[in-house]
């Protein structure tokens, strides 16, 4: 074909495209089983799921998908962080909180027809507990909440599971903790079909040069949830789930749930504007108003996170002086930061956890913005004109810090205003930033945390519980060990009210006597859905269940 003819053909093609564009509606493939066609809900995801076995998964994009197919013994009340019955109807501890008896639903089957019962529950726990070496590293969440696996059973929180009746399972743990049984709401610890796990060799994970290879089961998940796995079309970046018509609860409103992988945030917005997706997660806060104006609903979640300015006394010994840390805190104009750099609904933090978590101390007031007091304290500590290596991460956006650089600039300006000499350091999130924070290479850095479940220890325990190793270098302080021990003893109190009171007291101490870091703010992340979409309940834990979502007139 000569160049000229090619050009002509191309021009013709473009012309045809524009004239025929009116028939842009694609044909729907009605392969949804049984329950008729109630439309499709298409959700734009920022990243692809890692796999479909939630046990080995580590990231939110994977859990977003698996949550629709899998359920835990305990669930989360939509719209809150509260634990509610899911596959278990009730649970009761023994006197010292080391044995928990779960009464199970008796009307549940897995997607493959396997019965859900106490034996299935114990099979799941034993499967999670009994991991080979690779599995112990890959099973991040189990390691994180349970401490260890079967080969190191003495140090594991989980001690065993017994099917005491067909629909009654008793789980033993090594000692009481605020996290149990709340932690069973983690997407990672969901119940999976023992039959399918055995057939797909679920634990057959292997370390293989620079990565792990996963067994077949990881691509063929079988749970009890309102959606079943359809397929993952990797070439087109779409994950399709089908309505489970045999679901034990209220069946899903839509017959098909599709996740489309759209990494670029502005493209997600354009897809929503073009009507080709029905919603997406984490719209940029600067777009919220515009999206609402276009007739979309921006669903704002309660903030279940914390942004803090971390300090490391091992990197800069001047930070060992409480007066210096207080000075830094008084120097920060957090009210202005919250109003100018953070989404609507963000609040100043008064402690290292949001107010939705039990153990939150309501008596604490935000540290006042008082540059004069900051200068006075610095002078008293003999640290006027001190130097501070202050770092922020690039190429990342987290729910608690939509734009790290802008937050950093605001904080830096405040610190410089009281005479502190700030040395800027940056690195990309996976390109050294986290490594440097962990290794204690920055005097000061911004970081944060989104809670996994409703437990005070999941916040303050994560930050300061492990004395040997934490990002705040608390082992350099005379009170570091005391704080770590206090947190562990508070966490082991069986009675909810007493435990909450103990954590309230610790939160007070952290802010008034210790101040290992400076809590900055809590930001409410949002998700957005287009016109005609109903029933989205925003979850503080970003654990939205899409079974309740309906789409007007289908897609």
């Amino acid at each position, binding site marked *: 074909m000569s160049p000229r003819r090619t050009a002509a053909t191309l021009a013709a093609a473009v012309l045809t495209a524009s004239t025929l564009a009116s028939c842009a509606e694609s044909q729907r493939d009605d392969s949804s089983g049984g329950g008729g066609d109630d439309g499709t809900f298409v959700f734009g995801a920022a990243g692809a799921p890692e796999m479909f076995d939630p046990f080995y998964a580590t990231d939110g994009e994977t859990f977003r998908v698996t949550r629709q197919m899998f359920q835990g013994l305990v669930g989360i009340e939509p719209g809150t962080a509260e634990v509610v019955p899911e596959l278990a109807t009730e649970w009761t501890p023994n006197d010292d909180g080391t044995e928990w008896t779960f009464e199970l639903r008796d009307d549940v089957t897995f997607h493959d027809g396997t019965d859900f019962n106490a034996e299935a529950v114990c099979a799941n726990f034993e499967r999670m507990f009994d991991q080979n070496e690779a599995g112990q590293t890959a099973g991040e969440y189990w390691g994180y909440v349970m401490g260890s696996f079967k080969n190191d059973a003495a140090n594991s929180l989980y001690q065993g599971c017994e099917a005491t009746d067909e629909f009654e399972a008793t789980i033993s743990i090594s000692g009481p903790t605020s996290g149990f049984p709340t932690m069973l709401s983690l997407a990672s610890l969901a119940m999976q079909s023992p039959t399918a796990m055995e057939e797909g060799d679920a634990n057959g994970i292997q370390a*293989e040069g620079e990565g792990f290879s996963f067994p077949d089961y990881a691509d063929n998940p079988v749970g009890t949830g309102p959606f079943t796995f359809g397929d993952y079309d990797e070439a087109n970046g779409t994950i399709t789930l089908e309505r489970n018509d045999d679901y034990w609860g209220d069946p899903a409103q839509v017959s098909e749930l599709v996740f489309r992988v759209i990494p670029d945030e502005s493209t997600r917005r354009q897809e929503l504007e073009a009507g080709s997706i029905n919603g997406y997660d984490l719209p940029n806060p600067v777009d919220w108003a515009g999206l609402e104006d276009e007739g979309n609903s921006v669903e704002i979640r309660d903030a279940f996170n914390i942004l803090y300015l971390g300090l490391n006394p091992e990197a800069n010994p001047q930070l060992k002086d409480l007066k210096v840390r207080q000075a830094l805190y008084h120097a920060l104009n957090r009210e202005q930061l919250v109003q100018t750099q953070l989404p609507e609904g963000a609040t100043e933090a008064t402690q290292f956890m949001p107010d939705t978590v039990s153990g939150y101390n309501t008596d604490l007031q935000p540290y006042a913005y008082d540059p004069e007091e900051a200068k006075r304290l610095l002078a008293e500590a003999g640290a006027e004109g001190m130097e501070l290596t202050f770092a922020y991460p690039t190429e990342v956006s987290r729910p608690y810090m939509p734009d790290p650089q802008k937050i950093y600039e605001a904080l830096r300006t405040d610190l410089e205003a009281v005479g502190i000499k700030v040395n800027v350091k940056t690195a990309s999130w*996976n390109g050294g930033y986290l*490594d440097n924070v962990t290794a204690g290479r920055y005097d000061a850095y911004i970081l944060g945390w989104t809670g996994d479940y409703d437990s005070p220890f999941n916040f303050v325990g994560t930050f300061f519980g492990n004395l040997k190793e934490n990002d705040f270098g608390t082992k350099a302080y005379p009170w570091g060990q005391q704080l770590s021990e206090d947190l562990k003893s508070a966490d082991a109190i069986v009675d909810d009210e007493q435990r909450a009171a103990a954590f309230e007291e610790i939160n007070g101490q952290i802010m008034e006597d210790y101040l290992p870091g400076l809590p900055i703010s809590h930001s409410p992340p949002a998700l957005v859905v287009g016109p005609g979409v109903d029933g989205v309940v925003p979850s503080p834990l970003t654990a939205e269940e899409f079974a309740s979502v309906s789409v007007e007139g289908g897609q």
Partner: protein
Amino acid sequence: MVRFVVRRLLQMVLVVVVLSMLVFAWLRSLPGGPVSAILGERQTEERRAALEAALGLDQPLPVQYLKFLERAVQGNFGVSTKVLPGEDALQIFLDRLPATVELSALALLIAVALGIPLGYVAARRRGSPADTSAVIFSLVGVAVPVFFTAFLLKYFFAVEWNLLPVSGRQSTGLDATRVTGMFVLDGILTREWDAAWDALKHLILPAVALSTIPFAVIFRITRASVLDVLDEDYVRTAEAKGLTTRVIRARHVLRNAMLPVVTTIGLQVGGLLAGAVLTETVFSYQGVGAALATAFRDKDYAVLQVLILAAAVIYVLVNLLVDIAYAVIDPRIRTR
């Protein structure tokens, strides 16, 4: 000719081995790594060390490399940690390749189909308003970043006028048979015309966005090259001999002007892969470029190694093809 090709292929093997060493060392010298990407905020020294040991990243670099080489010889280039965890890295490349080939081919087709004729016409009418505006247009094409071009294309063609899809490779819910992984071709092969048409519609915007730079380069090289040839004595001789304009254009001007253009087209293939990284990302187009972007962000070593080495192999092969094309166009090269 055969000896020449064989020699070049052997050279390629050497290049790939040396490059693999460099890439291997370079990736591991970058700060951060796959462990941060996996652990995120949960990273502690202890967990990081455990994960690094499990992934073999705690071994000395030469040991790691030898292990890599040992596996690579058996065709095993490691598994992905983040792009598609557990999946064979080479398989990821092979699965993603058809999408990028399809996109790049169309982009190159657009660039060539517009660049060569326009370059020729601009040269014939040097200094005319048409020439000036074409030159300015090509300059803009090079200067404007791809993501901005892409944003504008999506905004007008997809959002405002609703003519074409915003992103992706296929409409949600369309059930199409896959053969080669090139969706347009698959639709034609299986005679699923609606699927072919749907895939083509998804291809147009990313291909146009990706073609802007190669178009501009091909246009300017063609124009310059044709200008050079038009001043040559043999063209004047041909005109004096009274040959028809058509013959002169085809046999004398275009044929001689094409040599540098062919080289340029070959060089553009490398550029297309670089352009595909951004283009595929903003068009949610699941090709090699998008995988490369994700792999780099999440420091997925195995996938990065495979993609970079594969790009090198493709680059060397394309250069080889260009040299062969040279020999076809210019008989003098063959006799050397």
